[in-house]
């Protein structure tokens, strides 16, 4: 039973992060952008878990818990903003929501 090489774990985290970044850059729907941000946060947490598993320390998992708390707070505020924007603009397209005032 050989261990998983750390390189492969980081490669997976990198690919997931890149996919999330592509989603943020390409999609024009606010909901999809929020989902892509979730993917990126998750990939960052995966990198911490991989590093923590490599040295058998709990620190990686602790940091993942902080990322989890941060993601929960971010999603609650972000989705409240999405609802508010949809109420004002009747659209979630970022091309339509490009004015700060008015």
């Amino acid at each position, binding site marked *: 039973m050989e261990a998983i090489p750390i390189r492969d774990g980081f490669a997976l985290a990198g690919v997931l992060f890149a996919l999330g970044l592509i989603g943020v850059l390409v999609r024009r729907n606010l909901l999809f952008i929020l989902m892509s941000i*979730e993917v990126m946060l998750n990939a960052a947490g995966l990198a911490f878990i991989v590093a923590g598993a490599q040295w058998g320390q709990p620190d*990686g998992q602790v940091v993942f818990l902080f990322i989890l708390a941060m993601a929960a707070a971010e999603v609650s505020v972000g989705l*409240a903003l999405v609802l508010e924007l949809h109420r004002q603009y009747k659209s979630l397209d970022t091309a339509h929501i490009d004015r700060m005032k008015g």
Partner: protein
Amino acid sequence: MPIVFYVAGAVAVVATALMLTRLNAVHALLYLIVSLLAVSVVFFTLGAPFVAALEVIVYAGAIMVLFVFVVMLLNLGQEAARAESVLLRPSMWIGPSVLAGILAIEVIYLVTESAGGTAGAAVVGPAEVGRSLFGPYVIGVELASMLLLGGLVGAYRLGWRRPTRPEGR
């Protein structure tokens, strides 16, 4: 059994890629949930069972429920009914089901193969994580609680509908 790690990683990447290319938000959410479950299996193979359970409970459970609520709130009227009829067609749920089935087979394999078996990596259990969390990282726990309080107040304020204001204020 590194093969479990690689299969779960492949499922995560495929589900995320499919999520990005969906046009309907509900379909994208289904794939995102599968992606999070796959990452949870990856955590389990890396010897982090506590975090794997939290990933399912908090991410795939709580956060995704928030997303589903918002999607359902935004899709009103005929559009929602049309989306629901599309959702019941097999071509829409067969993809996420297949990917989730692969993950289920992996979990059954892990459970039956060896009791709590992980891929060679040393298992760091909840007790160690808790000792570390409330030992050297206790200030981080306090800061996270402040952050969650801020998130709670912010979401409440943003969701608050202003009552019709009496004139002369």
